[in-house]
């Protein structure tokens, strides 16, 4: 009998999910903090540069907080080729009784976003729907982050809510968009692509 399980919930063609190693990962993340979009996603406003030491402390605290919480999970994305850190994945506000959760993906630099962005999202969704057994996922972006939102649209996410003027940036109010993906939307996208095994 064929194994009904998908090939891997942790690994895709170029990247895999792994634990965070604060000592090893902090110096790499420090190089990404000069990218304004990354810094904005990484810390609550206002975005600001963080030193390697501050990042190390932050990563240690975040790992501890996720371990103590039953509604949060943290991962590193690493390259299959050499295990090099390429980004982070965080599930938060998971409500197990409702089978819903929120997600934040940190793409380690513009080049990773363009080259591997869809793979980052696809791997996160595979884990959310196949292992966490969630029914829906939500991500949030201010509406000037069109590149990221387009990537999520291509994986089946739909714009569901537009909170008017809920973000203030560069002297101007921007809408915050809630993008939602149901497991059924995601299955449709995969069937259309005929990539049942990711």
């Amino acid at each position: 009998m064929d194994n009904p399980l998908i090939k891997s919930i942790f690994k895709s063609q170029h990247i895999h999910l792994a634990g965070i190693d604060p000592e090893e990962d902090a110096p790499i993340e420090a190089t990404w903090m000069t990218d304004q979009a990354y810094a904005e996603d990484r810390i609550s406003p206002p975005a600001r540069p963080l030193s390697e030491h501050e990042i190390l402390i932050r990563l240690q605290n975040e790992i501890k907080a996720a371990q103590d919480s039953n509604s949060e999970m943290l991962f590193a994305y690493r390259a299959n080729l050499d295990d090099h850190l390429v980004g982070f994945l965080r599930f938060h506000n998971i409500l197990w009784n409702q089978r819903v959760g929120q997600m934040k993906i940190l793409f380690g630099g513009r080049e990773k976003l363009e080259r591997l962005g869809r793979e980052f999202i696809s791997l996160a969704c595979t884990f959310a729907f196949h292992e966490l057994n969630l029914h829906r996922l939500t991500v949030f972006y201010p509406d000037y982050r069109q590149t990221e939102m387009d990537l999520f649209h291509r994986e089946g996410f739909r714009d569901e809510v537009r909170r008017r003027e809920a973000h203030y940036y560069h002297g101007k109010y921007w809408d915050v968009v809630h993008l939602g993906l149901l497991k059924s939307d995601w299955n449709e996208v995969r069937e259309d692509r005929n990539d049942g095994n990711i």
Partner: protein
Amino acid sequence: METFEGNLVRLDPIDSDSESELINSWFEDGEFFRLLDERLAKIPTVENTKEFIEKINKEGFIFGIHSRKDLTLIGFVGLGIINFYASEAWVGIAIGDRGNQGRGYGTDAMNVIIRFAFLELNLNRISLDVFEYKNWGIRSYEKVGFKLEGRERESIYRDGKWWDTLYMGILRKDWEEKRIAVN
């Protein structure tokens, strides 16, 4: 008009020693919790209720909704997740006894807290979310001036069915326009 006074109600601090027991009794009606929250409905202890009130007061504001007529406690309304960086806060409201629902107390209390948020806290927008089955609540929020900004599909599973969560928001400029129109 006083900052914390409406036509039917006034907002006062909740006396957690003398009023927690009454608030706690509202949670014994399972529907009360299921209109308020998407977490597992459970009956808190009086101590839990006191902690709940203190926690919101620490991070934001919670007020008791008291009848102007006889000063009885009808419900509570609070502002939380206040983000002064983006001038936004989230509002939540609950009316205790079912007999007091649908009598205009909630709408009146919401008008008072919105005025406080815009004129005292100087915020730019107030947000709320509401389950789609709480249709009388949605009508009340629309009366206050909230606009529907979208719905998260199938985000709550109750009584064997998926329901959407609606998101509504009111901007300071919407509220000012409405005030000018009313006056």
